[in-house]
């Protein structure tokens, strides 16, 4: 079959089962935008290429499939570098197609020429510059294979204009042949037995579960392991939803703003079962002081993570689901009758920590969640109400800052793939476009984004996209009139010398901004308005909604482990500071 390179590209995307592409056209990618008209693929026209990238990430996070974005050369490509870096950090499968100047012009500083493969080399799992139109089907098949298998990640295809315009005989690609790419599968049996031996002898074990559990669809395997052993679980920021949080084995999230019980459980453990997680500095605090008495079983599909930060007694390069299933079977073979008694003292300590140091906040007069300033509410109260008033399987998206941490603390995740946030890169501006992409991926679910006033201003233009495409996302702005997380650090570590962190509660006017972008806007200035407004927002199903929650500007996120400190030096909420540790 004779096709243009552009047609071959679209056909190759169709062959991969792509149903949605987020993008924005321009000169170099123009030829590819023509066959899109005739394709069943839905193209969603974003207002900024960063929005396309984050939307594709949101789509990928909730569906488990690769998110696809398409941009033009030069500024189109550089605008999507941040989402690529974000997806690289959080192991999100993306395929990004970027237009490029004609091969004959490459290297001449042609109009809108950027060395896109060079620029994106460090922020992609792999990238391609297509020079031969006959390679298109193979490159696309490889790109999707790389993005979605092993440790998932972003792949970029740089697509020159003359390649798009060339005529080519389209041939179905053969099976993917990548001699240098062999992600691990089953865990090494000897390692599995060694892990089971450690588990059978452990007195203070903890499962430290990360995003890899979700990526490997290992949540059921994890639940079965916990049911068999009675071992407590913490889930990282990226791993939230990997374990149902109403389960009594769940201790919360570890890390800089984790729960006291989760942080302390890791510190006092004698065995860490690190499943699909990478000992990120936001979890470990000072590495030399992290979990000092613990042996480590580390399962990760990325061999390079094993021993990168913390030496593991049992390193297992494997698919997380297969490894957890094998370990569970090995544990069962040894018998688990002795577990309850052996773990009883550990559970007694854990229960004490969790009852003495629950996540808490100052609920204000009569516990109504009134903020310390007139006309404000407590952000944690908003989160509690939002959780109470939305379906259990609601997808929650967050920006980056204090609001993100309150969302992580005060939401309860019961299902995998219901939490979408920027963990590793911490990208302000992530929430609005990611929420849009999540809603496109799961139109059957309610999607709420909890955003900061600062973050919202970075990418809010994608609400125009949401309106135009009738994507009914809901945005809760926790408006503290500050770059709050930075203000918190200046409060704690710079003697309250606030430098360039004040925004404004009413500039911009978020309600009118929402309306100008074709959505609905509400404002909440007191606790009694919280629930009714959430309910009104929940009713709206044809347009985006923005709720401007005026929150207490001076609220801090607790607990907190100061950067570079040991997790033992966790700072708890002031109301708990006097309690014995």
């Amino acid at each position, binding site marked *: 079959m004779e096709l243009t390179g552009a047609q071959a590209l679209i056909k190759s995307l169709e062959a991969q089962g792509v149903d949605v592409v987020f993008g924005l056209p321009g000169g170099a990618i123009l030829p590819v935008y023509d066959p899109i008209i005739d394709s069943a693929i839905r193209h969603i026209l974003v207002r900024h290429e960063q929005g396309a990238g984050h939307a594709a990430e949101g789509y990928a996070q909730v569906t488990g499939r690769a998110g696809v974005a398409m941009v033009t050369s030069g500024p189109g490509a550089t605008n999507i570098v941040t989402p690529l870096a974000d997806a690289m950090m959080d192991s999100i499968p993306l395929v990004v197609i970027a237009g490029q100047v004609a091969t004959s012009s490459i290297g001449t500083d042609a109009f809108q020429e950027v060395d896109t*493969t*060079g620029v994106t*080399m*460090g922020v992609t*799992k*792999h990238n391609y*510059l297509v*020079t031969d139109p006959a390679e298109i089907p193979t490159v696309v098949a490889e790109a999707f294979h*790389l993005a979605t298998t092993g440790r998932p990640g972003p792949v970029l295809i740089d697509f020159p204009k003359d390649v798009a315009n060339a005529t080519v005989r389209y041939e179905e690609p053969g099976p993917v042949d*990548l*001699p*240098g*790419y062999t992600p691990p599968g089953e865990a090494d049996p000897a390692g599995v037995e060694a892990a089971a031996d450690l588990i059978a002898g452990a007195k203070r074990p903890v499962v430290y579960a990360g995003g890899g559990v979700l990526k490997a669809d290992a949540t059921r395997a994890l639940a079965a392991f916990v049911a068999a052993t009675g071992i407590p679980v913490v889930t990282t920021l990226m791993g939230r939803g990997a374990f149902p949080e109403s389960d009594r084995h769940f201790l919360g999230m570890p890390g800089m703003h984790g729960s006291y019980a989760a942080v302390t459980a890791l510190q006092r453990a004698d065995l860490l079962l690190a499943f699909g997680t990478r000992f990120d500095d936001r979890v470990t605090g000072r590495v030399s002081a992290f979990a000092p008495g613990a042996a480590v079983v580390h399962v990760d599909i*990325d*061999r*390079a993570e*094993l*021993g*990168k930060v913390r030496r593991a007694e049992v390193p297992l390069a494997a698919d997380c689901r297969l490894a957890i299933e094998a370990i569970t079977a090995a544990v069962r073979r040894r018998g688990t009758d002795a577990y309850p008694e052996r773990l009883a003292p550990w559970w007694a300590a854990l229960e004490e920590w969790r009852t003495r140091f629950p996540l808490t906040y100052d609920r204000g007069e009569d516990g109504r969640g009134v903020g310390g300033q007139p006309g404000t509410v407590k952000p944690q109260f908003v989160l509690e109400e939002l959780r109470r008033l939305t379906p259990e399987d609601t997808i929650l998206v967050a920006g980056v800052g204090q609001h993100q941490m309150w969302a992580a603390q005060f939401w309860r995740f019961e299902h995998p793939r219901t939490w979408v946030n920027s963990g590793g890169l911490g990208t302000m501006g992530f929430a609005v476009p990611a929420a849009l992409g999540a809603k496109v991926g799961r139109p059957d679910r309610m999607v709420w984004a909890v955003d900061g006033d600062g973050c919202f201003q970075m990418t809010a233009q994608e609400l125009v996209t949401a309106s135009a495409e009738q994507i009914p996302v809901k945005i809760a702005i926790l408006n503290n009139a500050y770059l709050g997380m930075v203000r918190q650090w200046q409060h704690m570590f710079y003697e309250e010398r606030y430098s360039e962190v004040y925004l404004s509660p009413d500039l911009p006017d978020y309600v009118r901004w929402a309306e100008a972008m074709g959505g609905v806007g509400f404002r909440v200035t007191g606790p009694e308005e919280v629930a009714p407004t959430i309910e009104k927002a929940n009713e709206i199903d044809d347009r985006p909604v923005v709720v401007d929650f005026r929150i207490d500007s001076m609220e801090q996120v607790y607990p907190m482990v100061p950067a570079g400190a040991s997790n033992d030096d966790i700072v708890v909420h002031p109301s708990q500071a006097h309690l014995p540790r």
Partner: protein
Amino acid sequence: MSAPTGARRHLVSLLVENRAGVLARIAGLFSRRGFNIFSLAVAPTEDERFSRVSIVVDLESATLDQVLAQLDKLVNVVAINELRPEDAHEAELLLATVAGDTEARAALVDASTRFGGRVLEVGEETLTVQLAGPPAVLDEFEALARTLRIVGLQRTGTIGLPKLGAPR
């Protein structure tokens, strides 16, 4: 940078696909992750689809494991071997142009003959020699040449292959 020695010196041999940008990927990985390359040599192999890259790095063993694991993630890197000195043939090529009086130059010609080198060109005050061999021998020769005035010196970086019967 002085030459790495002892337990910190590692010769890593990579078999890579001959694709555009593969060297940039390798070099980029080293700089991105803060690892140093001491020398690097790259050329096609007997199979035109692949090239072999020999890299000498100056690292502790634990860090080396991390470098190897990260290199292994590069899609175009097909195979990685650390060539231990006892298990490998190592070689390198050196060119040096040296200036000196007649006597000094004569001494250098003498030395290069002793080291198995070759004089490529003799000028009025300078001469250019070529020497191939194990890196340690080249080091020794280079030290000798440094007692004269070196006008230009270029080494290729170490290349290596496993010895017959060595574990591959």
